[in-house]
C-alpha cells in the first residue's frame, strides 16, 4: 500500500466516524436542550397540577393528561390500521404478486409515503371527516378516528417498504424447503418467511410508530384539538388534542421563558421519552428474536 492511499484512508475513516458520532451528539444536545427548557416547568407548576385533566394554558390550567391520552389513542388507532395493512401489503408484494405487478406497485406505495402531511390534512377536513360524521352518525367528523385513519395511511408506506425489503431478503431456499416438506403457500408465509424476516418487519413497524406519534400537521387539522380525556373505548369517536398539535398550535404565541413556554417544552420532553421507550423496546425485541432465529436456523 503506498503512502497516499494510507493518507486518504485516514481522512475517510475520520469523516465516517464524525458522521456516526454526530448523530449521537445531536440527539444528546437535543435531549439536554429539552431538559434545560422543560424541567423548569416542574419548578413552576406542581407535578400534581401537571397530572390533572384540564388543559387551558391562558388561565394557568396545565394538566397534560388529556394531551397524553389524546396522543396515545390516535397512535394506537393508527397502528391498528397500519400493522395489518402494512404487513399484508408487504407479504402480497414480496410473496404473492407476480414480479411485473410488484415493479409497479412498490414505487406507487412509496409515492404515497412522499405525500406531504398537510395535503392529507386537507383530504381529512374536506372529505374524510364529513364522510365519517354522516356514515357513523357522529356529532362531528373531526375525531380521533379521522386522525388515526390518516396517520395509519401515513405509516403504511414506511412499513410496507421496509417490511417488503426484509421479506425479500429471506433466502429462496427457505421457501423451497418448506414447500418441499409439503407446506402450503400460506403455511410457508406464516410459519417460515415472516418469522425469518422478523427483525426487519419489527423495524418496519417501529419506524411506522415513530412516524405516527411525531406527526403534527395532519392531526392538528383533523382531530378537532379538544383537550378531553380519551380513556374510554368510545373516545376514538370524539375529538382529542395530541401533544404534537398542542406544541405546534401554541408555541408561536408564548413569551420566551414563561411558564406556558416551559410546560410546552416539558411536553416535548415527554414525547421524546415516549419515542425513546418505543425504540428501546423494539430494538430489544429485535435483538432477542434474532438470537432465537439464529438458533433455530443454524
Amino acid at each position, binding site marked *: 500500500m503506498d503512502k497516499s492511499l494510507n493518507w486518504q484512508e485516514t481522512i475517510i475513516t475520520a469523516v465516517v466516524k464524525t458522521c456516526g458520532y454526530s448523530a449521537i451528539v445531536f440527539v444528546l444536545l437535543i435531549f439536554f436542550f429539552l431538559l434545560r427548557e422543560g424541567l423548569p416547568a416542574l419548578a413552576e407548576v406542581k407535578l400534581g397540577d401537571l397530572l390533572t*385533566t*384540564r*388543559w*387551558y*394554558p*391562558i*388561565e394557568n*390550567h396545565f394538566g397534560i393528561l*388529556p394531551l397524553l391520552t389524546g396522543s396515545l389513542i390516535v397512535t394506537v388507532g393508527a397502528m391498528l390500521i397500519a400493522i395489518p395493512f402494512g404487513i399484508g401489503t408487504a407479504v402480497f408484494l414480496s410473496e404473492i404478486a407476480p414480479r411485473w405487478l410488484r415493479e409497479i406497485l412498490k414505487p406507487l406505495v412509496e409515492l404515497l409515503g412522499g405525500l406531504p402531511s398537510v395535503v392529507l390534512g386537507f383530504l381529512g*377536513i*374536506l372529505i374524510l371527516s*364529513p364522510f365519517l*360524521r354522516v356514515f357513523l352518525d357522529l*356529532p*362531528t*367528523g*373531526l375525531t380521533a378516528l379521522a386522525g388515526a385513519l390518516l396517520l395509519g395511511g401515513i405509516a403504511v408506506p414506511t412499513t410496507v417498504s421496509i417490511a417488503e425489503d426484509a421479506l425479500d431478503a429471506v433466502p429462496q431456499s427457505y421457501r423451497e424447503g418448506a414447500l418441499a416438506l409439503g407446506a402450503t403457500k400460506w403455511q410457508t408465509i406464516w410459519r417460515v418467511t415472516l418469522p425469518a424476516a422478523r427483525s426487519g418487519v419489527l423495524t418496519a413497524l417501529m419506524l411506522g410508530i415513530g412516524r405516527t406519534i411525531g406527526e403534527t400537521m395532519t392531526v*392538528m*387539522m383533523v382531530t*378537532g*384539538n*379538544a*383537550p*378531553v380525556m380519551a380513556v374510554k373505548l368510545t373516545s376514538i369517536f*370524539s*375529538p382529542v*388534542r395530541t401533544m404534537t398539535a398542542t406544541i405546534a*398550535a*401554541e408555541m*408561536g*404565541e*408564548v*413569551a*420566551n421563558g414563561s411558564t406556558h413556554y416551559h410546560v410546552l417544552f416539558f411536553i416535548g420532553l415527554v414525547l421524546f421519552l415516549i419515542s425513546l421507550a418505543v425504540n428501546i423496546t423494539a430494538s430489544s425485541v429485535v435483538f432477542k428474536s434474532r438470537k432465537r432465529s439464529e438458533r433455530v436456523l443454524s
Partner: protein
Amino acid sequence: MKSAHLILLVSLLFLAACRGGSGQTASPTQASAYIQNKGSDTMVNLALAWAERYQVEHPEVSLSVTGGGSGTGIAALVNGTVDIANASRAMKPEEKQQAEENGITPVEFTVARDAIAVIVNPENPIRQLTLQQVSDIYSGKYNNWSEVGGDNRPIVRLSRETNSGTHVYFLETVLRLGDKTNTTLFSTDTLLLPSSEGIINEVRQNPNAIGYDGLGYVPPDLMNSVIAVARTADGPYVIPSVATVNDNSYPVARDLYMYTAGEPAGAIKDYIDWILSPEAQAIVADLGFVPIR
C-alpha cells in the same frame, strides 16, 4: 486562466453570501424604509389590503404583513422583532410589563372595529340567542340544540385556538358576560381549530356546529345563518352589521388595535397616520369591518 475564473466565481459567491447574511439590515433596493407588521389573523386581510394600497402610493416604503394570532404579534413586538403588531384584543398588563423589561414601550392605536358573528349551519333553524344562552352553550351547560329551542341534535362547539385574540375576547365578553370575577371556561370538548377557515368549513358542512368569527370572515353563503344576539331575554335581537356596531346595539363588537414599539417616528408614523385617514378607513368598510370614524 482557469484559476482566474475560479477566483471570480468564489468572490461572487462570497459577495452573494454577504448580501444574504446581512439581509436583515439591508433594505430592498428601491425602498428606503422597511416596516414589519405581524399579528392578529382577524386583521391580516385588512393589514394586507392597507399595505398593498400604501405601497402603490409610497413605493419607497416596503411592508411585510404576516398573521399568526394577536398573541404571536404581541410576543414579536415584546421580543423586538416587528415594528407594528396587530391585535384584536388589548395588550394584557403582564405583556406590557414584559415589554417594559425588554426596554420597549408599546403605544396603542385603535385602527378599526369588528363584530364577532356567531354562526350556525343553514340547516339549523335557530336564528337568535341571548348572550347568556351563547355562554351556556360554550360552557357546556347546554349540550343539545333542543335546549335552546332547536332540533334534537347534539351541539358541536367550535372555537379558535387560545392564541387567537378572538378567542380571548369571546371568553371575556360572551362566556363571562364581561364580568371580571366570572371564571367560566370553555367546555373541554370545544373544538379548537387553528384557523378561521377551519371554523367556516366545519359550520358549512356540519348541521350540529356553532362557531364564531370576525364578521369580515363570514362568507356570503353563511350570512343568512348568522345568529341575532340579544343582551337580555327581552331583546332586541340584533344582527351584526356596520350600522349595529356603530350604534352599539350589537353586543359582541370590539376594537382592533395596532401597537408600535415606542411613539412611532418616520415611515412608521406616516403609515399609522395614513391608516387613520379616510382613504384607509374606506378599505376597512370594503372588507366587512367597521371604520372608526
